[in-house]
Protein backbone atom coordinates (compact mmCIF):
# COMPACT_ATOMS: atom_id res chain seq x y z
CA UNK A 1 0.00 0.00 0.00
CA UNK A 2 1.36 3.41 -0.96
CA UNK A 3 1.49 6.42 1.35
CA UNK A 4 1.59 8.85 -1.56
CA UNK A 5 -0.83 11.73 -0.92
CA UNK A 6 -1.77 13.78 -3.96
CA UNK A 7 -2.40 16.86 -1.80
CA UNK A 8 0.72 16.89 0.35
CA UNK A 9 3.27 14.91 -1.66
CA UNK A 10 1.86 16.13 -4.96
CA UNK A 11 2.23 19.75 -3.81
CA UNK A 12 5.87 19.20 -2.80
CA UNK A 13 6.63 17.67 -6.20
CA UNK A 14 4.68 20.38 -8.05
CA UNK A 15 6.47 23.16 -6.19
CA UNK A 16 9.83 21.64 -7.02
CA UNK A 17 8.95 21.25 -10.71
CA UNK A 18 7.71 24.84 -11.06
CA UNK A 19 10.81 26.26 -9.30
CA UNK A 20 13.16 24.25 -11.51
CA UNK A 21 11.46 25.09 -14.77
CA UNK A 22 11.25 28.81 -13.93
CA UNK A 23 14.94 28.95 -12.91
CA UNK A 24 16.02 26.97 -15.97
CA UNK A 25 14.10 29.15 -18.41
CA UNK A 26 14.94 32.49 -16.73
CA UNK A 27 18.67 32.22 -17.35
CA UNK A 28 17.99 32.03 -21.08
CA UNK A 29 18.69 35.77 -21.40
CA UNK A 30 22.34 35.22 -20.48
CA UNK A 31 22.88 32.86 -23.42
CA UNK A 32 24.10 34.80 -26.42
CA UNK A 33 26.95 32.67 -27.70
CA UNK A 34 27.60 29.03 -28.45
CA UNK A 35 30.28 29.13 -25.73
CA UNK A 36 27.67 30.23 -23.18
CA UNK A 37 25.33 27.46 -24.34
CA UNK A 38 27.91 24.69 -24.26
CA UNK A 39 30.31 25.54 -21.42
CA UNK A 40 28.64 28.46 -19.61
CA UNK A 41 31.34 30.87 -20.76
CA UNK A 42 33.90 29.00 -18.58
CA UNK A 43 32.66 30.89 -15.53
CA UNK A 44 31.99 27.95 -13.22
CA UNK A 45 33.51 28.26 -9.74
CA UNK A 46 34.23 25.49 -7.22
CA UNK A 47 30.97 25.17 -5.28
CA UNK A 48 28.64 25.50 -8.22
CA UNK A 49 30.85 22.93 -9.94
CA UNK A 50 30.59 20.55 -6.97
CA UNK A 51 26.79 20.88 -6.87
CA UNK A 52 26.53 20.38 -10.62
CA UNK A 53 28.93 17.43 -10.72
CA UNK A 54 27.21 15.71 -7.79
CA UNK A 55 23.71 16.31 -9.21
CA UNK A 56 24.72 15.12 -12.67
CA UNK A 57 26.41 11.97 -11.46
CA UNK A 58 23.42 10.91 -9.37
CA UNK A 59 20.28 10.06 -11.29
CA UNK A 60 17.37 7.76 -10.50
CA UNK A 61 19.19 5.16 -12.54
CA UNK A 62 22.15 5.52 -10.14
CA UNK A 63 19.82 5.03 -7.22
CA UNK A 64 18.30 1.95 -8.86
CA UNK A 65 21.51 0.20 -9.85
CA UNK A 66 23.32 0.93 -6.59
CA UNK A 67 20.29 -0.33 -4.63
CA UNK A 68 20.31 -3.39 -6.90
CA UNK A 69 23.99 -3.89 -6.04
CA UNK A 70 23.11 -3.68 -2.34
CA UNK A 71 20.21 -6.12 -2.77
CA UNK A 72 22.28 -8.59 -4.80
CA UNK A 73 25.69 -8.36 -3.12
CA UNK A 74 25.21 -6.62 0.24
CA UNK A 75 27.75 -4.00 1.30
CA UNK A 76 30.28 -5.48 -1.14
CA UNK A 77 28.11 -4.01 -3.89
CA UNK A 78 29.27 -0.52 -2.83
CA UNK A 79 32.89 -1.37 -3.73
CA UNK A 80 32.80 0.53 -7.08
CA UNK A 81 31.83 3.69 -5.19
CA UNK A 82 34.76 3.39 -2.80
CA UNK A 83 37.16 2.77 -5.70
CA UNK A 84 35.78 5.73 -7.69
CA UNK A 85 36.10 8.03 -4.67
CA UNK A 86 39.77 7.04 -4.29
CA UNK A 87 40.45 7.56 -8.02
CA UNK A 88 38.71 10.94 -7.97
CA UNK A 89 40.72 12.07 -4.94
CA UNK A 90 43.98 10.91 -6.51
CA UNK A 91 43.31 12.66 -9.82
CA UNK A 92 42.13 15.82 -8.05
CA UNK A 93 45.23 15.99 -5.86
CA UNK A 94 47.72 15.29 -8.65
CA UNK A 95 45.92 16.89 -11.59
CA UNK A 96 46.74 13.74 -13.59
CA UNK A 97 45.47 14.37 -17.14
CA UNK A 98 42.75 16.82 -16.07
CA UNK A 99 45.23 19.64 -15.49
CA UNK A 100 46.78 19.56 -18.99
CA UNK A 101 43.32 18.96 -20.45
CA UNK A 102 41.90 22.14 -18.88
CA UNK A 103 45.07 24.11 -19.65
CA UNK A 104 44.68 23.20 -23.32
CA UNK A 105 41.58 25.45 -23.39
CA UNK A 106 39.52 23.01 -25.44
CA UNK A 107 35.74 22.52 -25.30
CA UNK A 108 35.85 18.71 -25.58
CA UNK A 109 38.38 15.91 -25.29
CA UNK A 110 38.39 15.09 -29.03
CA UNK A 111 39.42 18.69 -29.66
CA UNK A 112 42.55 17.99 -27.62
CA UNK A 113 43.13 14.77 -29.56
CA UNK A 114 43.10 16.75 -32.80
CA UNK A 115 46.03 18.84 -31.58
CA UNK A 116 48.10 15.70 -31.10
CA UNK A 117 46.68 13.07 -33.44
CA UNK A 118 44.98 15.00 -36.24
CA UNK A 119 41.41 15.83 -37.34
CA UNK A 120 40.42 12.27 -38.32
CA UNK A 121 41.15 10.99 -34.83
CA UNK A 122 39.16 13.87 -33.40
CA UNK A 123 36.17 12.92 -35.52
CA UNK A 124 36.45 9.19 -34.82
CA UNK A 125 36.84 9.80 -31.07
CA UNK A 126 33.76 12.06 -31.14
CA UNK A 127 31.68 9.36 -32.86
CA UNK A 128 32.88 6.71 -30.41
CA UNK A 129 32.17 8.81 -27.32
CA UNK A 130 28.69 9.72 -28.55
CA UNK A 131 27.91 6.09 -29.51
CA UNK A 132 28.97 4.68 -26.14
CA UNK A 133 27.44 7.58 -24.23
CA UNK A 134 24.04 7.36 -25.88
CA UNK A 135 23.86 3.57 -25.54
CA UNK A 136 24.76 4.04 -21.89
CA UNK A 137 22.19 6.73 -21.32
CA UNK A 138 19.55 4.95 -23.39
CA UNK A 139 18.34 2.90 -20.43
CA UNK A 140 18.07 5.80 -17.96
CA UNK A 141 14.54 6.84 -18.86
CA UNK A 142 12.93 3.42 -18.64
CA UNK A 143 14.50 2.64 -15.27
CA UNK A 144 13.51 6.06 -13.95
CA UNK A 145 9.95 5.58 -15.18
CA UNK A 146 9.75 2.17 -13.50
CA UNK A 147 11.06 3.61 -10.22
CA UNK A 148 8.51 6.41 -10.16
CA UNK A 149 5.57 4.14 -11.04
CA UNK A 150 6.53 1.64 -8.32
CA UNK A 151 7.36 4.17 -5.61
CA UNK A 152 4.14 6.12 -6.19
CA UNK A 153 2.22 2.87 -5.94
CA UNK A 154 0.42 3.13 -9.29
CA UNK A 155 -1.53 0.09 -10.49
CA UNK A 156 1.16 -2.43 -11.36
CA UNK A 157 -1.03 -4.05 -14.05
CA UNK A 158 -0.57 -0.92 -16.15
CA UNK A 159 3.17 -0.68 -15.43
CA UNK A 160 4.09 -0.50 -19.13
CA UNK A 161 1.63 2.31 -19.92
CA UNK A 162 2.56 4.37 -16.88
CA UNK A 163 6.26 3.92 -17.61
CA UNK A 164 5.81 5.32 -21.14
CA UNK A 165 3.88 8.32 -19.78
CA UNK A 166 6.52 8.93 -17.10
CA UNK A 167 9.37 8.57 -19.60
CA UNK A 168 7.84 11.05 -22.01
CA UNK A 169 6.99 13.60 -19.30
CA UNK A 170 10.46 13.43 -17.74
CA UNK A 171 12.15 13.79 -21.07
CA UNK A 172 10.02 16.77 -22.07
CA UNK A 173 10.69 18.60 -18.79
CA UNK A 174 14.44 18.14 -19.01
CA UNK A 175 14.62 18.89 -22.71
CA UNK A 176 12.67 22.15 -22.51
CA UNK A 177 15.10 24.03 -20.29
CA UNK A 178 18.17 22.38 -21.80
CA UNK A 179 17.13 23.47 -25.30
CA UNK A 180 16.37 26.96 -24.07
CA UNK A 181 19.35 27.72 -21.83
CA UNK A 182 21.98 25.05 -22.56
CA UNK A 183 24.74 24.51 -19.99
CA UNK A 184 23.80 27.68 -18.14
CA UNK A 185 20.29 26.38 -17.40
CA UNK A 186 21.76 22.99 -16.61
CA UNK A 187 24.11 24.50 -14.01
CA UNK A 188 21.48 26.63 -12.29
CA UNK A 189 18.93 23.82 -12.19
CA UNK A 190 21.65 21.37 -11.12
CA UNK A 191 22.25 23.59 -8.10
CA UNK A 192 18.57 23.51 -7.06
CA UNK A 193 18.41 19.82 -7.84
CA UNK A 194 21.49 19.11 -5.74
CA UNK A 195 19.85 20.66 -2.67
CA UNK A 196 16.49 18.89 -3.13
CA UNK A 197 18.15 15.58 -4.03
CA UNK A 198 20.54 15.69 -1.06
CA UNK A 199 17.77 16.56 1.41
CA UNK A 200 15.68 13.62 0.17
CA UNK A 201 18.57 11.14 0.18
CA UNK A 202 19.72 12.06 3.68
CA UNK A 203 16.21 12.07 5.19
CA UNK A 204 15.30 8.67 3.74
CA UNK A 205 18.62 7.11 4.80
CA UNK A 206 18.35 8.38 8.37
CA UNK A 207 14.78 7.02 8.55
CA UNK A 208 15.91 3.60 7.26
CA UNK A 209 18.85 3.41 9.68
CA UNK A 210 16.48 4.33 12.51
CA UNK A 211 13.61 2.01 11.51
CA UNK A 212 15.50 -1.06 10.28
CA UNK A 213 18.66 -0.63 12.33
CA UNK A 214 22.30 -1.45 11.66
CA UNK A 215 22.13 -4.85 13.38
CA UNK A 216 19.29 -6.06 11.17
CA UNK A 217 21.00 -4.77 8.02
CA UNK A 218 24.26 -6.59 8.77
CA UNK A 219 22.45 -9.71 9.96
CA UNK A 220 20.47 -9.81 6.68
CA UNK A 221 23.61 -9.46 4.59
CA UNK A 222 25.35 -12.19 6.61
CA UNK A 223 22.35 -14.51 6.27
CA UNK A 224 22.17 -14.11 2.49
CA UNK A 225 25.81 -13.71 1.45
CA UNK A 226 28.01 -14.58 4.47
CA UNK A 227 31.42 -12.85 4.30
CA UNK A 228 30.90 -12.20 0.57
CA UNK A 229 28.31 -9.59 1.50
CA UNK A 230 31.05 -7.44 3.04
CA UNK A 231 34.11 -8.43 1.02
CA UNK A 232 33.93 -8.49 -2.81
CA UNK A 233 36.93 -10.83 -3.05
CA UNK A 234 35.10 -13.59 -1.18
CA UNK A 235 31.76 -13.06 -2.97
CA UNK A 236 31.16 -15.93 -5.40
CA UNK A 237 29.48 -13.66 -7.98
CA UNK A 238 32.04 -10.84 -7.78
CA UNK A 239 35.66 -11.81 -7.05
CA UNK A 240 38.95 -10.21 -8.10
CA UNK A 241 37.76 -9.70 -11.70
CA UNK A 242 34.94 -7.47 -10.43
CA UNK A 243 37.37 -5.36 -8.39
CA UNK A 244 39.94 -5.04 -11.19
CA UNK A 245 37.33 -4.21 -13.83
CA UNK A 246 35.79 -1.59 -11.56
CA UNK A 247 39.21 -0.09 -10.82
CA UNK A 248 39.94 0.25 -14.56
CA UNK A 249 36.45 1.61 -15.16
CA UNK A 250 36.65 4.07 -12.26
CA UNK A 251 39.99 5.51 -13.35
CA UNK A 252 38.90 5.82 -16.98
CA UNK A 253 35.60 7.28 -15.82
CA UNK A 254 37.25 9.92 -13.67
CA UNK A 255 39.64 10.87 -16.45
CA UNK A 256 37.39 10.84 -19.48
CA UNK A 257 33.69 10.54 -18.62
CA UNK A 258 32.38 13.36 -20.74
CA UNK A 259 29.84 14.78 -18.28
CA UNK A 260 32.51 14.90 -15.55
CA UNK A 261 35.13 16.35 -17.87
CA UNK A 262 32.61 18.94 -19.08
CA UNK A 263 32.65 20.45 -15.56
CA UNK A 264 36.46 20.63 -15.62
CA UNK A 265 36.39 22.27 -19.04
CA UNK A 266 33.74 24.76 -17.89
CA UNK A 267 35.71 25.64 -14.74
CA UNK A 268 37.50 28.98 -14.37
CA UNK A 269 40.94 27.36 -14.42
CA UNK A 270 42.73 24.04 -13.90
CA UNK A 271 43.11 24.59 -10.17
CA UNK A 272 39.34 25.10 -9.78
CA UNK A 273 38.73 21.91 -11.78
CA UNK A 274 41.08 19.95 -9.51
CA UNK A 275 39.38 21.34 -6.39
CA UNK A 276 36.02 20.20 -7.77
CA UNK A 277 37.44 16.69 -8.09
CA UNK A 278 39.04 16.59 -4.65
CA UNK A 279 36.03 17.97 -2.83
CA UNK A 280 33.46 15.87 -4.71
CA UNK A 281 35.43 12.61 -4.37
CA UNK A 282 33.73 11.31 -1.23
CA UNK A 283 30.35 11.89 -2.82
CA UNK A 284 31.13 9.00 -5.16
CA UNK A 285 31.33 6.65 -2.16
CA UNK A 286 28.06 8.12 -0.83
CA UNK A 287 26.25 7.67 -4.13
CA UNK A 288 26.91 3.92 -4.02
CA UNK A 289 26.54 3.29 -0.32
CA UNK A 290 23.42 5.33 0.49
CA UNK A 291 21.08 3.70 -2.08
CA UNK A 292 22.95 0.43 -1.44
CA UNK A 293 21.65 0.59 2.13
CA UNK A 294 18.13 1.15 0.75
CA UNK A 295 18.55 -2.05 -1.28
CA UNK A 296 19.80 -3.98 1.77
CA UNK A 297 16.84 -2.64 3.78
CA UNK A 298 14.49 -3.95 1.07
CA UNK A 299 16.21 -7.35 1.36
CA UNK A 300 15.75 -7.24 5.13
CA UNK A 301 12.12 -6.14 5.21
CA UNK A 302 10.37 -7.62 2.15
CA UNK A 303 9.50 -11.28 2.50
CA UNK A 304 10.76 -13.66 -0.22
CA UNK A 305 8.36 -13.79 -3.14
CA UNK A 306 6.74 -10.40 -2.40
CA UNK A 307 8.08 -8.78 -5.55
CA UNK A 308 7.46 -11.84 -7.74
CA UNK A 309 3.85 -11.96 -6.55
CA UNK A 310 3.40 -8.24 -7.09
CA UNK A 311 4.92 -8.14 -10.58
CA UNK A 312 4.08 -11.47 -12.21
CA UNK A 313 6.27 -12.37 -15.15
CA UNK A 314 9.14 -10.08 -14.10
CA UNK A 315 12.58 -11.24 -15.23
CA UNK A 316 15.32 -12.19 -12.75
CA UNK A 317 17.00 -8.81 -13.38
CA UNK A 318 13.78 -6.92 -12.60
CA UNK A 319 13.27 -8.94 -9.43
CA UNK A 320 16.54 -7.49 -8.12
CA UNK A 321 15.77 -3.89 -9.19
CA UNK A 322 12.13 -3.57 -8.11
CA UNK A 323 12.41 -4.38 -4.36
CA UNK A 324 13.89 -1.00 -3.35
CA UNK A 325 11.11 1.20 -4.81
CA UNK A 326 8.45 -1.23 -3.57
CA UNK A 327 9.98 -1.13 -0.09
CA UNK A 328 10.10 2.69 -0.10
CA UNK A 329 6.50 2.83 -1.36
CA UNK A 330 5.37 0.82 1.68
CA UNK A 331 7.61 2.46 4.26
CA UNK A 332 7.87 6.21 3.71
CA UNK A 333 5.31 8.43 5.44
CA UNK A 334 3.34 11.19 3.74
CA UNK A 335 5.55 14.24 3.24
CA UNK A 336 8.78 12.28 3.11
CA UNK A 337 7.33 10.45 0.12
CA UNK A 338 6.86 13.80 -1.65
CA UNK A 339 10.40 14.84 -0.74
CA UNK A 340 11.76 11.54 -2.07
CA UNK A 341 9.91 11.84 -5.37
CA UNK A 342 10.99 15.49 -5.76
CA UNK A 343 14.56 14.39 -4.94
CA UNK A 344 14.45 11.62 -7.51
CA UNK A 345 12.93 13.90 -10.15
CA UNK A 346 15.70 16.38 -9.35
CA UNK A 347 18.31 13.66 -9.68
CA UNK A 348 16.88 12.49 -12.97
CA UNK A 349 16.36 15.88 -14.57
CA UNK A 350 19.86 17.07 -13.67
CA UNK A 351 21.41 13.92 -15.13
CA UNK A 352 19.27 13.89 -18.27
CA UNK A 353 19.84 17.57 -19.03
CA UNK A 354 23.58 17.40 -18.35
CA UNK A 355 24.02 14.28 -20.44
CA UNK A 356 22.03 15.76 -23.32
CA UNK A 357 24.07 18.97 -23.36
CA UNK A 358 27.29 16.97 -23.12
CA UNK A 359 26.58 14.71 -26.07
CA UNK A 360 25.22 17.68 -27.99
CA UNK A 361 28.51 19.50 -27.38
CA UNK A 362 30.44 16.58 -28.82
CA UNK A 363 28.22 16.21 -31.86
CA UNK A 364 28.35 19.92 -32.64
CA UNK A 365 31.97 20.56 -31.75
CA UNK A 366 33.63 17.40 -33.04
CA UNK A 367 31.41 15.32 -35.31
CA UNK A 368 29.93 18.21 -37.27
CA UNK A 369 33.22 20.15 -37.31
CA UNK A 370 34.32 18.85 -40.75
CA UNK A 371 30.98 19.96 -42.21
CA UNK A 372 31.35 23.55 -41.05
CA UNK A 373 33.45 24.79 -43.93
CA UNK A 374 32.86 28.44 -43.04
CA UNK A 375 32.43 29.90 -39.58
CA UNK A 376 28.84 29.67 -38.46
CA UNK A 377 27.12 32.64 -36.86
CA UNK A 378 26.32 32.37 -33.16
CA UNK A 379 22.61 32.19 -33.94
CA UNK A 380 23.05 29.34 -36.40
CA UNK A 381 25.33 27.52 -33.93
CA UNK A 382 22.75 27.88 -31.15
CA UNK A 383 19.96 26.68 -33.42
CA UNK A 384 21.92 23.57 -34.39
CA UNK A 385 22.74 22.82 -30.76
CA UNK A 386 19.08 23.08 -29.83
CA UNK A 387 18.08 20.77 -32.68
CA UNK A 388 20.73 18.24 -31.62
CA UNK A 389 19.53 18.25 -28.00
CA UNK A 390 15.96 17.62 -29.21
CA UNK A 391 17.06 14.76 -31.46
CA UNK A 392 18.97 13.16 -28.60
CA UNK A 393 15.74 13.33 -26.59
CA UNK A 394 13.87 11.45 -29.33
CA UNK A 395 16.59 8.79 -29.48
CA UNK A 396 16.48 8.29 -25.70
CA UNK A 397 12.73 7.77 -25.77
CA UNK A 398 12.81 5.24 -28.61
CA UNK A 399 15.85 3.31 -27.32
CA UNK A 400 14.48 3.26 -23.78
CA UNK A 401 11.24 1.73 -25.01
CA UNK A 402 12.84 -0.91 -27.21
CA UNK A 403 16.00 -2.15 -25.45
CA UNK A 404 15.85 -4.86 -22.76
CA UNK A 405 18.83 -5.21 -20.38
CA UNK A 406 20.07 -8.80 -19.94
CA UNK A 407 22.60 -8.28 -17.11
CA UNK A 408 22.54 -6.25 -13.91
CA UNK A 409 22.23 -2.54 -14.68
CA UNK A 410 25.66 -1.58 -13.33
CA UNK A 411 27.33 -4.23 -15.50
CA UNK A 412 25.44 -2.90 -18.57
CA UNK A 413 26.43 0.69 -17.80
CA UNK A 414 30.03 -0.31 -17.14
CA UNK A 415 30.22 -2.18 -20.43
CA UNK A 416 28.59 0.46 -22.60
CA UNK A 417 30.73 3.10 -20.91
CA UNK A 418 33.81 1.00 -21.65
CA UNK A 419 32.99 1.16 -25.38
CA UNK A 420 34.56 4.60 -25.36
CA UNK A 421 36.20 4.92 -21.94
CA UNK A 422 38.82 2.26 -22.73
CA UNK A 423 39.89 4.05 -25.92
CA UNK A 424 39.64 7.63 -24.72
CA UNK A 425 41.43 6.94 -21.43
CA UNK A 426 44.35 5.28 -23.26
CA UNK A 427 44.47 8.15 -25.75
CA UNK A 428 44.27 10.86 -23.10
CA UNK A 429 47.08 9.40 -20.97
CA UNK A 430 49.27 8.89 -24.05
CA UNK A 431 48.39 12.35 -25.38
CA UNK A 432 49.40 14.05 -22.15
CA UNK A 433 52.38 11.99 -21.03
CA UNK A 434 53.92 9.93 -23.85
CA UNK A 435 56.04 11.73 -26.43
CA UNK A 436 56.04 8.84 -28.90
CA UNK A 437 52.25 8.51 -29.03
CA UNK A 438 50.89 9.12 -32.53
CA UNK A 439 47.79 8.76 -34.68
CA UNK A 440 48.41 5.08 -35.49
CA UNK A 441 48.26 4.25 -31.81
CA UNK A 442 45.18 6.42 -31.36
CA UNK A 443 43.44 4.76 -34.33
CA UNK A 444 44.33 1.35 -32.88
CA UNK A 445 42.82 2.28 -29.52
CA UNK A 446 39.64 3.56 -31.20
CA UNK A 447 39.26 0.36 -33.24
CA UNK A 448 40.21 -2.30 -30.67
CA UNK A 449 38.85 -0.70 -27.48
CA UNK A 450 35.15 -0.99 -28.33
CA UNK A 451 35.34 -4.39 -30.07
CA UNK A 452 35.01 -6.62 -27.00
CA UNK A 453 32.19 -4.79 -25.19
CA UNK A 454 30.21 -4.35 -28.43
CA UNK A 455 30.67 -8.04 -29.28
CA UNK A 456 29.65 -9.04 -25.77
CA UNK A 457 26.46 -6.93 -25.89
CA UNK A 458 25.58 -8.33 -29.33
CA UNK A 459 26.25 -11.96 -28.29
CA UNK A 460 23.98 -11.51 -25.28
CA UNK A 461 21.06 -10.67 -27.56
CA UNK A 462 21.60 -13.63 -29.94
CA UNK A 463 20.14 -16.89 -28.55
CA UNK A 464 22.90 -19.03 -30.11
CA UNK A 465 25.72 -17.07 -28.47
CA UNK A 466 23.97 -15.97 -25.25
CA UNK A 467 25.24 -18.94 -23.14
CA UNK A 468 28.80 -18.22 -24.24
CA UNK A 469 28.43 -14.53 -23.35
CA UNK A 470 27.05 -15.50 -19.96
CA UNK A 471 30.02 -17.79 -19.36
CA UNK A 472 32.55 -15.04 -20.14
CA UNK A 473 30.65 -12.47 -18.09
CA UNK A 474 30.75 -8.67 -18.17
CA UNK A 475 33.83 -8.21 -15.97
CA UNK A 476 36.29 -10.16 -18.13
CA UNK A 477 34.82 -8.47 -21.24
CA UNK A 478 35.30 -5.06 -19.66
CA UNK A 479 38.89 -5.80 -18.63
CA UNK A 480 39.65 -7.04 -22.15
CA UNK A 481 38.47 -3.70 -23.56
CA UNK A 482 40.97 -1.71 -21.46
CA UNK A 483 43.81 -4.11 -22.17
CA UNK A 484 43.05 -4.10 -25.91
CA UNK A 485 42.86 -0.31 -26.12
CA UNK A 486 46.05 0.23 -24.12
CA UNK A 487 47.97 -2.39 -26.08
CA UNK A 488 46.76 -1.00 -29.42
CA UNK A 489 47.81 2.50 -28.37
CA UNK A 490 51.34 1.35 -27.55
CA UNK A 491 51.80 -1.09 -30.44
CA UNK A 492 50.35 1.29 -33.04
CA UNK A 493 52.52 4.17 -31.86
CA UNK A 494 55.66 2.03 -31.92
CA UNK A 495 54.85 0.50 -35.32
CA UNK A 496 54.31 3.77 -37.15
CA UNK A 497 57.92 4.97 -37.22
CA UNK A 498 58.93 1.50 -38.49
CA UNK A 499 56.25 0.97 -41.15
CA UNK A 500 55.31 4.46 -42.34
CA UNK A 501 57.48 5.92 -45.12
CA UNK A 502 59.92 8.43 -43.59
CA UNK A 503 59.41 12.07 -44.47
CA UNK A 504 55.64 11.81 -44.86
CA UNK A 505 53.97 14.60 -43.01
CA UNK A 506 51.62 12.20 -41.28
CA UNK A 507 54.46 9.77 -40.55
CA UNK A 508 56.11 11.97 -37.99
CA UNK A 509 55.01 11.95 -34.39
CA UNK A 510 53.17 15.18 -33.76
CA UNK A 511 54.96 17.43 -31.31
CA UNK A 512 53.25 17.93 -27.97
CA UNK A 513 51.07 21.01 -27.92
CA UNK A 514 52.71 23.74 -25.85
CA UNK A 515 50.05 23.57 -23.16
CA UNK A 516 50.74 19.87 -22.67
CA UNK A 517 54.51 19.92 -22.68
CA UNK A 518 54.62 20.72 -18.96
CA UNK A 519 52.79 17.49 -18.25
CA UNK A 520 55.34 15.19 -19.86
CA UNK A 521 57.75 13.67 -17.34
Amino acid at each position, binding site marked *: MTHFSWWIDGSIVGLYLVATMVAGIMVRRYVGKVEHFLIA*GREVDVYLGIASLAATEFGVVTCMYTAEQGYRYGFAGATPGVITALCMLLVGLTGFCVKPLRQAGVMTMPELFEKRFGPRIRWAAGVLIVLGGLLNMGVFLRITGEFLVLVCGFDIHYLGTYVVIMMTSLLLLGTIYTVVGGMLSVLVTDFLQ*FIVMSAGLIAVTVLILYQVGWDKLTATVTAHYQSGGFNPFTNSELGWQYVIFNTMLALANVLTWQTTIARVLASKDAKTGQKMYTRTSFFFACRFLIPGIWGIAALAVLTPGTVAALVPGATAEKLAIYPMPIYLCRTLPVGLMGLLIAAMLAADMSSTSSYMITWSTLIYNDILAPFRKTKWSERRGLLWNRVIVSLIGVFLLVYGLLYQIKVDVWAYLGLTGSIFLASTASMLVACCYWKRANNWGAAGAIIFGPLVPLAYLAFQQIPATAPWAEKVGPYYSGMAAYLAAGTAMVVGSLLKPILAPPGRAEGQPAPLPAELSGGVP
Partner: protein
Amino acid sequence: MTGSNGHEFWWCLTIGCVVWYSTVTVYVAIRGASDIKKMLAHLSEDSPERAASAGESVDN
Protein backbone atom coordinates in the same frame (compact mmCIF):
# COMPACT_ATOMS: atom_id res chain seq x y z
CA MET B 1 21.96 0.85 16.30
CA THR B 2 24.14 -0.84 18.85
CA GLY B 3 27.53 -0.23 17.18
CA SER B 4 29.47 -1.55 14.26
CA ASN B 5 28.49 -5.18 14.93
CA GLY B 6 31.87 -6.45 13.73
CA HIS B 7 31.80 -4.55 10.45
CA GLU B 8 33.75 -1.44 11.42
CA PHE B 9 34.73 -0.45 7.88
CA TRP B 10 31.18 -0.35 6.54
CA TRP B 11 29.80 1.15 9.75
CA CYS B 12 32.33 4.03 9.68
CA LEU B 13 31.74 4.55 5.96
CA THR B 14 27.95 4.64 6.40
CA ILE B 15 28.07 7.11 9.28
CA GLY B 16 30.77 9.10 7.45
CA CYS B 17 28.56 9.32 4.34
CA VAL B 18 25.52 10.59 6.24
CA VAL B 19 27.48 13.15 8.29
CA TRP B 20 29.70 14.34 5.43
CA TYR B 21 26.85 14.55 2.94
CA SER B 22 24.64 16.54 5.34
CA THR B 23 27.43 19.01 6.09
CA VAL B 24 28.49 19.42 2.47
CA THR B 25 24.92 19.98 1.32
CA VAL B 26 24.46 22.97 3.63
CA TYR B 27 27.89 24.40 2.81
CA VAL B 28 27.57 23.97 -0.97
CA ALA B 29 24.04 25.41 -0.88
CA ILE B 30 25.38 28.65 0.61
CA ARG B 31 28.60 28.96 -1.40
CA GLY B 32 27.04 27.69 -4.64
CA ALA B 33 24.38 30.43 -4.57
CA SER B 34 27.18 32.98 -4.37
CA ASP B 35 28.97 31.30 -7.31
CA ILE B 36 25.80 31.55 -9.42
CA LYS B 37 25.46 35.26 -8.69
CA LYS B 38 29.06 35.87 -9.73
CA MET B 39 28.73 33.75 -12.85
CA LEU B 40 25.59 35.55 -14.03
CA ALA B 41 27.18 38.94 -13.26
CA HIS B 42 30.18 38.07 -15.43
CA LEU B 43 27.95 36.83 -18.23
CA SER B 44 25.88 40.04 -18.03
CA GLU B 45 29.05 42.04 -18.66
CA ASP B 46 29.34 40.10 -21.88
CA SER B 47 25.85 41.21 -22.97
CA PRO B 48 26.80 44.01 -25.43
CA GLU B 49 28.81 41.48 -27.39
CA ARG B 50 25.91 39.09 -27.06
CA ALA B 51 23.53 41.65 -28.47
CA ALA B 52 25.92 42.38 -31.32
CA SER B 53 26.27 38.68 -32.09
CA ALA B 54 22.55 38.23 -32.11
CA GLY B 55 22.26 41.21 -34.45
CA GLU B 56 24.75 39.74 -36.88
CA SER B 57 22.93 36.51 -37.07
CA VAL B 58 22.36 36.41 -40.80
CA ASP B 59 23.97 33.34 -42.23
CA ASN B 60 26.23 33.47 -45.17
